[in-house]
């Protein structure tokens, strides 16, 4: 990893600290475009009223990666794994608040240099302040 170890230390110091929450209003085309991208013709999501459970992976992901790359400008990141828990479906018009935090980080020497193995936990709350989902992502940065 060509990154200054001070960046990694900065990220380590944030373990357990929640990042700034972000809000996303769920629109019909977001759901339909997601189902089309997966190639999922299930009639349940075709009208964009209910989202497939894995739609959660798309909520706020782009800003999460921006936040991560701002902290540590990795050359690239790879997804190592995903654990999703869904408590209720996400529906059209929901306003979802995401909160991300880093919960673990270890470093290892790999073929591309130093690699950071990171675990991130995120929670997803709707406009009624109900927890609709939780997600854990294992991400490798180098």
């Amino acid at each position, binding site marked *: 990893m060509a990154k200054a170890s001070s960046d990694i230390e900065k990220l380590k110091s944030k373990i357990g600290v929640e990042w700034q929450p972000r809000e996303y209003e769920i629109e019909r085309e977001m759901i339909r475009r997601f189902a089309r991208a997966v190639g*999922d013709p299930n009639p349940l999501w075709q009208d964009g009223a209910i989202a497939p459970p894995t739609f959660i992976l798309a909520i706020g992901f782009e800003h999460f990666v921006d936040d991560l790359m701002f902290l540590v400008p990795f050359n*690239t990141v*790879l997804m190592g794994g995903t*654990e999703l828990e869904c408590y209720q479906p996400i529906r059209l018009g929901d306003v979802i608040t995401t909160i991300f935090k880093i919960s673990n980080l270890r470093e290892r020497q790999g*073929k591309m240099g130093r690699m950071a193995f990171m675990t991130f936990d995120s929670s997803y709350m709707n406009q009624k302040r109900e927890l609709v989902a939780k997600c854990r992502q294992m991400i490798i940065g180098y």
Partner: protein
Amino acid sequence: MTEQLYYQDVAVGGEITPMVKQPTTMQLVMWVGASGDYNPIHYDKDFAQSRGLSGVIVPGQLIGAFLGQLMTDWIGEQGALRKLSCSYKGMSYPGEAVTCKGKVTKKYVQNGEHFVECSLWAENPKGEKTASGKAMVILPSRG
């Protein structure tokens, strides 16, 4: 839509009908746009190669979404996918088939709800597992 699956229809060891996906570079771009995962390793071959990959790779989370589809297709409208985990073990490349498979590992009733657990995986055309995971679903019960 297919017939609703009930808790009583499921047996431990039973297989879930496999689902075959044929991701193309176009599908990768659609996924990038829909998911907000703009990592160039999914659409820029030169970039991917400069990062030590042999070419653009299918996003792990898209494979996760395929496994999610395998489950939601299986459990039907009245089923609920409660947990889905997936760990990405190998690279998948556009143009290669991704075969999603699953098997029932456990079934039980808890607090009046009917739970089924499954092991899931995705295979490349050589039959190697490129991802593996688990799912927990709630199914409706007959009577």
